[in-house]
């Protein structure tokens, strides 16, 4: 083989390796887009998990959806952070007015299982279900003006029976099981139904109080006394023992550094939708509205599963 042919061969090899290297760098930059994971999610030693919006079980899959803190996704992030050896502590950044009791309990339960330092950092609001979640952490830090507390349950709804009567519209009651339409907005609650409904809410409230008593190691009578559903401003909550410290990010960092003897390096742990999920979500939602019709969505009666019983 001549020298020229040999040189030409190695030039071809060099160019090929250069192209492979270049493409590898370009494609590595798209890791987050295709995997839906934070590109820098694997460095850092303190996981920062947001709990923002109304706490519900499932996420909002729409392209521009937001305002929902999905317990499914948050639990996944907590479990992921708990598994990673490089993560020494978990901070829940809470800005939530509450939400579903079940979803709040799921997050609190996952947080209690973690064998690392956990901190709840309450921003503007950490009330009701948001406080339920915070109570499961080792240490709660809130701003003196944060809104927190609101230990209670709400299931209020608008009742339209008067309006229907005014327009000569009749609610045709067809049920098998006398309490099947308990809570329907189209008829008044009977005293018996109201009592049953209230009993269920009281029971949920009792669970909520039990959780606070256990998580915060507080006296049950005392918690019952302050669990009126009333919200408390941060400094009030501190005086009542509902939060451990007043402050913000600096105080969160200082606490973890004291506990773990590390220099805190936050890393975001939040579910990011990859391109395929975003695209699928958009197409799915469009198909739903075309198929089902907005009119059907407005007129269908809500089954029990869609009652808004919230903490």
């Amino acid at each position: 083989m001549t020298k020229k042919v040999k040189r030409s061969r190695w030039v071809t090899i060099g160019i090929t390796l250069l192209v492979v290297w270049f493409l590898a760098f370009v494609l590595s930059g798209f890791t987050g887009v295709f995997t839906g994971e934070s590109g820098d999610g694997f460095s850092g030693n303190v996981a920062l998990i947001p709990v923002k919006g109304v706490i519900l079980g499932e996420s909002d899959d729409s392209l521009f959806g937001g305002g929902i803190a999905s317990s499914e996704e948050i639990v996944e992030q907590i479990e992921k952070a708990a598994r990673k050896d490089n993560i020494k502590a978990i901070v829940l950044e809470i800005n939530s007015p509450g939400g579903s009791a079940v979803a709040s309990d799921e997050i609190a339960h996952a947080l209690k299982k973690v064998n690392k330092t956990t901190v709840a950092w309450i921003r503007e609001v950490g009330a009701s279900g948001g406080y339920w979640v915070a109570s499961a952490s080792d240490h709660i830090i809130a701003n003196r003006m944060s809104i927190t507390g609101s230990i209670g349950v709400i299931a209020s709804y608008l009742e339209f029976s008067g309006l229907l009567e005014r327009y000569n519209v009749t609610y045709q009651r067809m049920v098998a099981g006398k309490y099947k339409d308990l809570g329907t907005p189209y008829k008044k609650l009977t005293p018996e139904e109201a009592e049953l409904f209230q009993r269920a809410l009281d029971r949920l409230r009792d669970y909520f109080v039990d959780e606070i008593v256990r998580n915060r190691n507080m006296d049950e009578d005392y918690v019952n006394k302050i669990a009126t559903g009333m919200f408390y401003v941060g400094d009030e909550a501190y005086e009542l023992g509902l939060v451990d410290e007043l402050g913000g990010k600096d105080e969160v960092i200082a606490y973890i550094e004291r506990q773990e003897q590390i220099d805190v390096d936050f890393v975001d742990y939040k579910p990011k939708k990859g391109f395929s999920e975003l695209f699928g979500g958009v197409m799915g939602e469009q198909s739903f509205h075309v198929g089902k019709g907005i009119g059907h969505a407005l007129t269908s009666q809500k089954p029990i599963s869609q009652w808004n019983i919230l903490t």
Partner: protein
Amino acid sequence: MNSPLVWKRFAAFVIDFLIVFMIVYTAFADILTPIVQSGIDKADPVFLYFFAVFSLLLLLYFVTLEKKLGQSIGKIFMNLFVVGKKVDGRSFPHLIRGAFLIPFFPFQLLLILDPLFMMFTKNNQRLMEIFSKTTTVSRRAS
């Protein structure tokens, strides 16, 4: 032309694999190193994405070099050549040859089927070499 020993072909593939792996890993080092240090979760999407990118770039490497030179770097060291009818200047036969590297079903099945065929063919041809009408030899006919 004579059929090269299987170990030579295997060694050539290992050399090529390691060269491309080092190049691709360098690009992903910042992302992968913390995962490797903390323990790889097999279902980790970043790890799966890296594997997919690496496989496709390895395929690109083989297709480009075997099309242009008839040899990859590993084959140069092992003195092996890719020959076949109507392959000069064409990418498609080399793409077929390297189909076992495509990281999606059903091509992943070729990771087992492809080398298995070498045990049953006269010239130690892989399954995809039969489909692409190419073969790997230890001396190119002049």
